């Protein structure tokens, strides 16, 4: 599609409030090249950057932050060893530690977090897991609905509707944004943010258009 850094700079100029880099297959291949991407991005982009994918240790987090990330997002490593959340919070503070939860429906109103880019089952309940990571100090939850991701058919609000009342940290929803109205809907449901990829990457809507919709719906937003 092009270079990620070019997209990043365009979104910055267009008024994005935050960038989220997700190296989707990093855990599978054990790679770390995203550091160079962060370094390059932060030359010209002056909004927060959250980086996830393949973070395996406190040392990795340290490196990402030094290269220009503001927050690090962890999934697989947290499920394998939840103590790392506590340790990371002690060193970097809660605000720095995002736990990404990739959910797959496992029952009528239950969801399972998956790891390794959606390839591995955790056998956990996503709602219990979310509460647990918040208790351990995670400062933000980044929820991806795997079934919705890339579909542009709308967000999955079922899980986050249950979640937002039970945790007192920001919840960002990702997966399925198809148009600005759905973003307005997300804001009205008490979500702190939404992550949008496909409709921006393919140029279907601009950030400006989405933010104008939010503003005209009465939501406080930086234009």
């Amino acid at each position, binding site marked *: 599609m092009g270079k990620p850094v070019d997209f990043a700079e365009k979104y910055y100029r267009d008024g994005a409030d935050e960038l989220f880099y997700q190296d989707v297959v990093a855990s599978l291949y054990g790679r770390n090249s995203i550091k160079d991407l962060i370094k390059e991005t932060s030359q010209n982009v002056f909004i927060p950057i959250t980086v996830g994918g393949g973070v395996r240790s406190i040392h990795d987090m340290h490196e990402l932050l030094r290269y220009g990330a*503001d927050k690090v997002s962890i999934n697989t490593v947290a499920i394998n060893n939840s103590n790392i959340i506590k340790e990371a919070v002690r060193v970097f*503070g809660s605000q720095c530690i995002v736990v990404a939860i990739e959910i797959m429906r496992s029952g009528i109103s239950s969801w399972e977090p998956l790891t390794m880019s959606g390839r591995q089952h955790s056998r956990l309940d996503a709602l219990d897991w979310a509460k647990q990571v918040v208790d351990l100090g995670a400062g933000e939850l980044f929820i991806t609905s795997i079934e919705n991701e890339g579909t542009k058919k709308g967000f999955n609000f079922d899980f986050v509707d249950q979640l937002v009342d039970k945790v007192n940290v920001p919840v960002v929803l990702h997966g399925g944004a198809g148009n600005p109205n759905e973003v307005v809907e997300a804001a009205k449901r008490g979500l702190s943010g939404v992550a949008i990829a496909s409709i921006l990457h393919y140029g279907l809507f601009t950030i400006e258009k989405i933010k104008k919709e939010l503003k005209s719906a009465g939501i406080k937003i930086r234009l």
Partner: protein
Amino acid sequence: MTEKLTIVDYGLGNLHSIQKAIEYVGAKTVFDRDGTAIVDSEKVLLPGVGAFAEGMKRIKSRQQLKPIIKFAASGRPLLGICLGCQMLLSSSDEFDGADGLGLIPGKAIKISETKEPIPHVGWEALKLRPSLSCANIPFPSITEGMWTYFIHSYHAMPEEEEYICATCEYGESEVTAIISKKNIYGFQFHPEKSGEAGLEMIRDFIKL
């Protein structure tokens, strides 16, 4: 005048971002990692992401504590950002509590009970408080309602109200955004992450 701006590197935080923002607006930066570069600087910037006690511990172990205090007494500009802003104070309630640099009397306290999520993460519009101590704050780009990016759970609560120059609303809470006492300035938000508006504030700082 040389534009020697020293960034205190105590081993925590997004040094790359703040360095890039300063270079972007046209100033050179030096990192201090052992306390030796601070005292002779024109300006010092104390960045910060992380936990208060951990930050102070590292500042002490890198021999930076005394040089920062000495620099602050010189009357030259010292700007603390986020955790760096909180560390300007006497102490913090975070975890089991810890002493700070003590340059502005007061302490870092948790954002008061609110229905809103903690940490407070996101963009907020500044509300200026033109107190006596802040009337001459040398940042002309800072204006009422300007949007800045916050990411924190604690905020500065100086002993004297007049050291608070700006706040923002967060749910029903009022959060301290800018503190100042003489040549000491603290931004709770991240100017280096607040888009063009934030870059303007950094421009103001390098012009001081």
